């Protein structure tokens, strides 16, 4: 007990009373600074809002953090909208954008050189980065209204559209795809792809919704539900659409964010899909090429009152360091963001209330989101990119939020302490976590409708320590996606995380696994359970570095 607490919080000094706080001193916190203006690039998130409210305009600005040129620095890729109702990227303002990280705090627009402008694409939404052909270079999958596209990274700074020959372009006509996630569901060493679909939509079938002479974005219920799609990687750059045989085809939703994790600890990756105004799906891998939708069984289909909210972004990480990945999804203002605690791999308990997330989140409309230990204290915090769906409310433009994890139990809002750039209000949509300057503190990249993205650099100045693990699979997929990591610090604290690039909404993050270590600099052990089933343990690992771990050949 601290001495002033023993005195009941009061201390007599001279003739007056001096009041001491009975709370622990505030920890030093990093803050975020937007460095986007230092770079010369034209990209702005352009949903072509000109007065007419087309349904997909609310969703624009996917972002991926990937090291496309293997120079050790995370680069950025952004998706963009299209001219409506033409649904074409008629001019440069709608092009997608690839920014190469120069390593000096600036980014170079290399989109045209890379062949990623996407001139022939329609309205683009999410992006997923992953090395599907295990050639050591990260590839890109882009979701669209209209055909989706798979870009193969040629390893020379250019990409090739391989959609047609890959077989990944198959989807029912006019299905609007929102997000993609790479994962190896059958542990055969090749990355498969799950795509969340929203509805069937074209500009010609777009519905007009208005009241009192004002148009508003239609309620999702005026559009039909559709199946999400699973593509099995056959090797040699070919994919097979296994939506129907895998069980994904049976469930119709309005897919938004996708979170990948092994929720029941059986060594096979499961899939959580956040659905907008439809119950959320949790596809549990049956280890035989099929999945069983188990949202009811696990208690994550609806919130605690049986409501299906407007679920947006999703992430699955272990926020309480108990060894089991939990789920976090956000939704719109007036609803409650969902936090579900994994109860030993059997089911999930709704934790939004006890964790204070219900009180903290109710005024925000969240889109992309995720667990991120922004301050390297070893507890994953929850971040959300916010902004209302429409422009008609009192607080349509909203700032992002960071709710800091207090000992793995509860969260508190520290958004206001993270700097003016973090708190800039807007219609934020996509976001990715990435350590852009390799200083061990996660940075943030956030898109906002009608604006240049923010590239928010973490000030990394609270003295906490860290480890960044870059997994390289050999028997497993080369990215190591799905590998489960358990880190034990010198003091015996145990931290968990796993490899995934899929988090939030329409976005794809740094694949390197991040651990904040707080004040500790020593790591007793780092255990990696690879998707192949092999378990690798490293002893006495030094902190504050990027550690590349290659899976043993046998």
């Amino acid at each position, binding site marked *: 007990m601290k001495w002033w607490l023993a005195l009941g919080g009061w201390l007599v000094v001279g003739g007056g009373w001096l009041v001491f706080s009975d709370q622990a001193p505030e920890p030093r916190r990093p803050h975020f600074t937007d460095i986007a203006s230092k770079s010369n690039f034209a990209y702005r998130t352009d949903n072509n809002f000109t007065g007419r409210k087309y349904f997909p305009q609310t969703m624009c600005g996917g972002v991926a953090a990937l090291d496309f040129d293997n120079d050790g620095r995370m680069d950025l890729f952004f998706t963009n909208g299209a001219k409506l109702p033409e649904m074409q990227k008629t001019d440069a303002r709608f092009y997608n954008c690839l920014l190469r990280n120069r390593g000096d705090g600036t980014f170079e627009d290399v989109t045209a050189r890379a062949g990623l402008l996407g001139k022939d694409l329609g309205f683009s939404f999410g992006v997923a980065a992953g090395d599907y052909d295990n050639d050591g270079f990260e590839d890109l999958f882009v979701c669209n209204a209209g055909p989706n596209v798979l870009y193969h990274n040629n390893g020379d700074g250019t990409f090739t559209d391989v959609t047609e020959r890959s077989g990944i372009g198959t989807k029912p006509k006019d299905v609007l795809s929102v997000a993609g996630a790479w994962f190896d569901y059958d542990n055969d060493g090749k990355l498969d792809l799950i795509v969340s679909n929203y509805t069937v939509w074209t500009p010609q079938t777009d*519905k007009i*919704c*208005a*009241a*009192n002479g004002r148009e*508003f*974005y*239609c*309620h*999702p*219920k*005026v559009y039909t539900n559709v199946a999400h799609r699973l593509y099995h990687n056959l090797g040699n750059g070919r994919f097979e659409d296994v939506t129907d045989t895998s069980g994904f085809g049976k469930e119709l939703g309005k897919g938004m964010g996708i979170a990948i994790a092994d929720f029941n600890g059986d060594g096979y990756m499961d899939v959580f899909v956040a659905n907008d*105004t439809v*119950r959320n799906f949790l596809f549990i891998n049956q280890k035989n090429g099929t999945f069983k939708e188990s949202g*009811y*069984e696990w*208690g994550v*289909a*609806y919130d*605690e*009152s*049986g*409501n*299906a909210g*407007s679920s947006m972004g999703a992430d699955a990480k272990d926020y309480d360091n108990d060894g089991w990945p939990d789920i976090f999804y956000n939704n*719109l*203002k*007036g*609803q*409650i963001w969902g936090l579900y605690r994994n109860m030993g791999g059997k*089911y999930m*308990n*709704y934790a*939004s*209330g*006890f964790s204070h997330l*219900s*009180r903290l989140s*109710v*005024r*925000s409309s969240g889109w992309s989101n995720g667990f991120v230990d922004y301050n390297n204290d070893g507890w994953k915090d929850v971040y959300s990119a916010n902004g209302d*769906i*429409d422009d*008609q*409310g*009192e607080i349509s433009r909203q700032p992002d939020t960071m709710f800091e994890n207090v000992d793995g139990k509860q969260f508190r809002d520290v958004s206001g302490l993270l700097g003016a750039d973090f708190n800039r209000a807007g219609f934020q949509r996509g976001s990715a976590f990435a350590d852009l300057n390799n200083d061990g503190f996660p940075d943030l990249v956030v898109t906002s409708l009608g604006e240049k993205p923010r590239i928010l650099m973490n000030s990394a100045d609270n003295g906490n320590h860290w480890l960044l693990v870059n997994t390289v699979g050999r028997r497993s997929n080369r990215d190591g996606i799905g590998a489960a990591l358990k880190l034990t610090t010198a003091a015996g604290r145990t931290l968990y995380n796993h490899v995934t690039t899929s988090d939030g909404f329409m976005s794809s993050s740094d694949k390197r696994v991040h651990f904040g270590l707080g004040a500790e600099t020593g790591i007793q052990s780092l255990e990696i359970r690879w998707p192949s089933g092999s378990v690798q343990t490293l002893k006495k690992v030094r902190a504050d570095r990027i550690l590349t771990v290659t899976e043993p050949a046998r």
Partner: protein
Amino acid sequence: MLLAHVLCAQEDAIRGYRQYLEAHPDSVEARSNLGAALARAGQYEEAIAEYDRALLKNPDNPVLLLNLGLAYYKTGRPAEAAARFERAAALAPQFKEQVVLLLSSCYNSLGKYKEAIALLAPLEKDKSDDQAFDYLYGTALIGDGQNARGAAIIDRILSRGESAEARLLQGTLKLGAHDYDGALAEIEKAIALNDRLPGAHARLGELSMAKGENDRARAAFGQELAMDPDEFVSNLNMGVLAKQDQDYAAARRYFDRALRARPNDAGVRYQMANVDLATGNADQARRALEALIGESPDFAEAHATLATVYYRMDRRSDGDRERALAQKLMDQRDAAEAGVKPR
């Protein structure tokens, strides 16, 4: 001074009737009068006890039933009040006109808007200049979703001058149409005109919740409950807010209170079942949900939660059945709701 005089007179009357009843315990009239004196003195619970004792002797006495209904009405128990009013009117049709407003007020409190409309609609011509009638009728119409007819009643009230009741109805209409700014302006106007208008703070609380302003909602519901501890909407929503905070003991207290105002309300009982599930009482949740579904087979959320309860109890086939039912009902509802509305 006058109040003290009246109270003294009531106390004298109560004393007198009690003395008389010691000698004549079977006198229904004296017990009825004692009940009336107690009610006039604000001692409603004692009055209810005396009326009940009198009714044991004369169960079909419409005057006793009417007075008992009034006492229940005064104590904010609309279900009990409505049952007595209905019976009194059935026994003595001459009381029908006397009880119609009271009974429709009870129906509105119970959310039985169709019943209130059935009572009030035939009287609309005769009561077209009756402010109380208009308020009750407007409340029932808007509660039943007959917004255009409700709006006409509001116009009629406002044509007679500014009115807190009309503003509250207007605010309710706008809240239902998701016009939150408009609803706030109307409700605030209603409160400015009459800070003690029943239901006004509760409506402000609902609006605040819809806007995600939960602290403001708590304050508004708290104000309503300070005036009427049994007010249904405030108790229900305070319970929901407490449940969101996982303060389950407080949630149960509020839900219990809400059930006093609307006994057997399916929504409240569903919330209670969710509290049972969240606190690990899966079997209790199962019983409650099975009962609810027995009474309301189309309650989709109850089927969905019951599916989860069954899965938790390892009753897989039951879970699968409930899940399929929930899905079917929700799909039907989605199809029916697929109209144009903002989110």
